[in-house]
């Protein structure tokens, strides 16, 4: 060993319990090299100087307090267990668990189906949660199959994978920035601002607090502790299959791969219109990769199962923890020309629509646009129809047909099929999204133009 190699490895001699086998050559070197021996002594001296001469000992009462708490806990658990009418079933569960454990040992893998979440899954999630609880900042670069200006929850299986960037700074006032090409959302801890570029005038909106509804699919990724809780609940639910496996990554390190296969949520009995339009409304497969040693989540991939195979709709390309974030990331410059969507105060009810059927409201809505009655239209669409581009496009339209309303997926409102002819002569055929889940039960237009 030469002096250079020694300097590189000398901290091994400063470890709490160095392995004699691995340090033998280091010891051999310092026996011969007085310069390196001196260097090591200096390092040891400085360590000695900052070693407290005494340490605080625990109060003798602490252990007693802990053990008393445990006794209370045990008593409560036992009482609860015996109160539960089906506690005897636990015996059967225990036998099943034993077989399952044998299966894990035999295969090195674990698969949980329909609610029988396992220790390995909990351990993976719990360790990852413990890790992220200490994280201060996070940056995620990802790709998502979505349209550049669309809602962050919406996916489009025919769209290319486009870049999505997310930053978050944890704390009492969590700060978040999420952006893709034509849609940006910034939460500065007090409010959330959204900016969309839809072709003409930019649209902006501001909400109090952290408006996670603007990015509800991605929000859990930025709150990994919630994400893991959510995944652990999902793993327990009857609609998910959970699989934990270990494998070696391209960096040669052991990885824990957690795979959750979840069925589509929502009611599709009337229509499949919203099926596969968001991750949660799809049969999706979520794959999390954790570093086995550090429990860091290193990657997330989401596939949607379709009749033509699995389609990748989301994947992280980089996850960074505890990196310095520029404060300007959490400020959003909204152009002066932007139309603010929710600037107006409480919408004035010009016409009570609470007793209308969905198709009646759709008829009323399009009639209003055809007359270019923007005062009334504002009631139906809050302030979106203040947008001059939309006024130009839809003012004076002609209704060709209004179809039978239907519901789909998790959407709380209705879809009404329609066919209209615009002033430009263009014919549009689509589904109007309307909802009345507000305290006054007034119908509002929610999309689909």
């Amino acid at each position: 060993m030469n002096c250079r190699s020694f300097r590189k490895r000398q901290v091994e001699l400063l470890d709490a319990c160095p392995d004699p086998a691995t340090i033998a050559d280091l010891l051999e070197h310092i026996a011969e090299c007085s310069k390196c021996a001196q260097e090591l002594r200096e390092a040891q001296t400085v360590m000695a100087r900052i070693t407290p001469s005494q340490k605080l000992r625990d109060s003798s009462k602490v252990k007693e307090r802990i053990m008393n708490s445990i006794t209370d806990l045990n008593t409560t658990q036992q009482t609860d267990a015996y109160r539960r009418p089906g506690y005897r079933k636990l015996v059967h569960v225990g036998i099943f668990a034993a077989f399952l454990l044998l299966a894990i040992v035999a295969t090195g893998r674990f698969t949980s189906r329909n609610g029988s979440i396992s220790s390995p899954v909990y351990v993976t999630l719990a360790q990852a949660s413990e890790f992220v609880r200490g994280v201060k900042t996070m940056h995620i670069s990802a790709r998502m199959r979505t349209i550049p200006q669309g809602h962050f929850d919406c996916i489009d299986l025919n769209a290319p994978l486009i870049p999505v960037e997310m930053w978050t700074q944890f704390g009492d006032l969590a700060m978040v920035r999420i952006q893709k090409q034509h849609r940006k959302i910034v939460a500065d801890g007090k409010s959330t601002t959204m900016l969309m570029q839809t072709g003409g005038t930019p649209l902006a909106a501001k909400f109090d607090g952290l408006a996670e509804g603007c990015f509800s699919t991605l929000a859990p990724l930025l709150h990994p502790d919630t994400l893991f809780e959510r995944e652990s609940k999902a793993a327990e639910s009857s609609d998910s299959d959970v699989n934990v496996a270990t494998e070696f990554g391209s960096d040669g390190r052991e990885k824990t791969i957690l795979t959750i296969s979840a069925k589509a949520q929502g009611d599709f009995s009337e229509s499949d219109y919203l099926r596969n339009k968001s991750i949660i409304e799809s049969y999706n497969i979520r794959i999390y990769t954790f570093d086995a040693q550090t429990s860091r989540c290193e990657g997330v991939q989401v596939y949607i199962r379709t009749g033509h195979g699995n389609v990748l709709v989301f994947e992280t390309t980089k996850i960074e923890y505890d990196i310095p974030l520029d404060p300007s990331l959490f400020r959003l410059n909204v152009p002066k020309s932007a139309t603010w969507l929710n600037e107006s105060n409480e919408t004035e009810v010009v016409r009570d629509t609470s007793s209308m059927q969905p198709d009646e409201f759709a008829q009323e809505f399009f009639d209003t646009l055809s007359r270019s009655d923007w005062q009334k239209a504002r009631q139906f669409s809050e302030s979106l129809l203040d947008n001059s581009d939309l006024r130009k496009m839809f003012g004076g339209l002609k209704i060709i047909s209004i179809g039978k309303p239907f519901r789909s997926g998790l959407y709380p409102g209705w879809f009404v099929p329609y066919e209209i002819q615009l002033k430009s002569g263009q014919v549009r055929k689509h589904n109007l999204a309307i909802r009345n889940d507000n305290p006054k039960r007034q119908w509002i237009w929610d999309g689909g133009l």
Partner: protein
Amino acid sequence: MPVMLSEYSSGFPTDSQASEETGNCGWPQTLDEFELLVDNVLDRLVWYAFHTLGNADDAEDVVQEVLVRVYADRAKRRNVQRVMPYLYRMVANACRERCRRDRNKPTAIELDRLDNISDEKNGLQTQITIIDELQWIEHLLNQLPAKQAEVIRLRVIDDLPLSDIAQILGCLLPTVKSRLCYGLRKLRQIVSAPKEGNR
């Protein structure tokens, strides 16, 4: 002059000793295993929480909270192999949460908190000595980059093996080694420089 590798033994059991004493059986599943773990780790965890929070009462409360969770959630964590680093991470997180919750409370070692520390094992004079020493150590460590200081703190003040430090901090062993190496090098310069405040 011979190099003494055990020169920094603090009197606390090292992690490997603690593991041996707990039978190296992983996460405690029975009350007996749990009590054995408490006997072996209580001092170390309270000490870690104490020099993180600067207050003995808070340190004891945090450790109590964590150890009760250790037992309450034992089923979930039965597969955890290396218990000690996991416990340190739990205590570190609990300390951070307590600091966040009690923003008005000091997080550094402060002498005016001494009136809170008065149990039988830790006499007032001992407390003053410990806190005085820790203040001086923190004064030195605060002159280092935070990540290097954290590794030195865990290695020297908590007497933890480097492999455990890597687990606690969630980074690779070579990273921990290089942080220790560079940190100690800088510390040597700081200690040897005749600056006011360095004794």
